[in-house]
């Protein structure tokens, strides 16, 4: 027998003998929670896709001006009903080559990472995730050379595959929306990456949009004071688990995204912030807050504090809430 074959078969058997000690054999909980995160993102896309099967084609959508860059944020259902109703009439009146193309509305919700967006695009266009991610990264590099990573440089938005027949078209559109948003806010290019990064932190950290400006003030105050940000969302980004709390092991991950380890903003965004979070990043309210903690995981109520003692009391409120609501 060929020695390579023999060696690999023995290794496979040896590997199988180690299986009973593996995490996989022990529990599938982590896998399932990771699957659920993806399924929730995809569901948004496929729900929109389900209602968005337009009888006509992309040209009808374009003619109606629905995709005039005013698309986000939108309610997919409303927009899709309008488009479906009108464009199917138009389709019979003006047949065209593209009229047979099935048009699907896809939504990327706020907060998505580039990997999650690539997953949705790969499902939408039937291509590999690597290809989809490359499409996003290429568009970011082309349209926003000031970006340090592609993360957050595409707008979480909806688009119609009829109007954007290839993944490159869709990526170009999503990135251009974001670039336009930043230009409309008159942010100079050199500062845009920090704004996007900060906004992504705000989006992930604040449970309620009414808290965006306050979270923004805490980030700004900590940076000014030379304190580490110590935001768990940045650790969640490098260690994507469903769990609300990060473990001591995760806090020890040596990465520039670990804001418990390194001072300053992480090198890139940790998700795609919505426009409100970007505005909050630009305009932190004037506070002395240095700490915050969510004290009610159902309502998202968050308590802010200036001193560590106050913060510790707020953390206790969270612990009390958990004790009262556990199980």
């Amino acid at each position, binding site marked *: 027998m060929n020695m*390579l074959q023999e*060696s*690999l078969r023995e290794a496979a058997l040896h*590997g199988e003998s180690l*299986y009973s000690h593996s995490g*996989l054999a022990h529990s*599938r909980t982590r896998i399932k929670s990771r699957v659920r995160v993806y399924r929730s993102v995809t569901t948004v896309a496929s729900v929109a896709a389900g209602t968005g099967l337009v009888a006509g084609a992309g040209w009808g959508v374009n003619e109606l001006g629905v995709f005039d860059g005013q698309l986000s944020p939108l309610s997919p259902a409303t927009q899709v009903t309008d488009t479906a109703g009108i464009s199917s009439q138009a389709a019979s009146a003006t047949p065209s080559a593209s009229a047979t193309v099935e048009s699907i509305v896809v939504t990327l919700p706020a907060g998505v990472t580039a990997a999650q967006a690539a997953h949705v695009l790969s499902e939408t266009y039937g291509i590999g995730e690597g290809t989809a991610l490359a499409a996003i990264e290429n568009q970011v590099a082309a349209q926003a050379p000031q970006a340090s990573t592609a993360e957050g440089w595409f707008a979480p938005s909806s688009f119609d595959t009829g109007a954007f027949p290839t993944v490159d078209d869709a990526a170009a559109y999503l990135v251009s929306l974001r670039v336009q948003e930043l230009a409309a806010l008159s942010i100079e290019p050199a500062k845009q990456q920090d704004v996007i990064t900060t906004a992504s932190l705000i989006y992930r950290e604040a449970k309620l949009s009414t808290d965006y400006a306050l979270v923004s003030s805490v980030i700004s105050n900590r940076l000014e004071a030379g304190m580490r940000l110590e935001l768990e969302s940045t650790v969640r980004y490098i260690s994507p688990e469903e769990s609300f709390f990060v473990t001591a092991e995760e806090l020890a991950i040596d990465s520039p995204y670990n804001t418990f380890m390194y001072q300053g903003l992480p090198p890139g965004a940790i998700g795609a912030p919505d426009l409100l979070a970007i505005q909050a990043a630009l305009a932190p309210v004037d506070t002395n807050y240095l700490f915050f903690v969510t004290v009610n995981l159902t309502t998202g109520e968050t308590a802010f504090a200036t001193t560590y003692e106050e913060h510790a009391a707020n953390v206790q409120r969270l612990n009390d809430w958990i004790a009262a609501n556990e199980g």
Partner: protein
Amino acid sequence: MSAWGDSLEELVRERGSALFGYAYVLTGSADLADDLVQDALVRTFRAPRRFASIDHTHAYVKRAITTAFIDGARRAKVRPLRAAGVAGELDSVAHLQSGGHFPDHAQAVSETADLHAAIVTLPPRERACIVLRFLEDKSVASIAAELGLAEGSVKRYLSDAVTTLRSRHHFDLDPDAPHSSSIPVTTQGGSL
């Protein structure tokens, strides 16, 4: 429980050890194999798919393991994330690098184990090609299709890998693959 949750549990119960063994061949580490299989299962179940049978699911996850292995290695290079492979390095790699032998194994066993230890030091694409060719007994054409590579690239990876194993690690390997490259995929040796 959800339908996908049920089929995930069934697959792991019945095929968990085989999938783990396959991932171990690629990574040479139980910890990395664990991560790899879990990643592949996430990739498989995160989108709605229909599987005709458990064999079908098994085959899909196996491909996902190979893809995740190559992607993971590529991403680890690009992104400054978690330092991979610090914990759970294959013991025999260190052993191999120190030039020793396994005193508690017969010489033949030691040599095949050393060979595997050398294989897991190969670059990921070369390693994947070697595993698909020699463990899975796949043709160059089917490896090329599975990895999305040109057949010429697969041949080059295979030949570079064998050259490395011969020259750097001094294994006395047959220059040729055990079968002609046109041989169909077989199910022999658990190569589902």
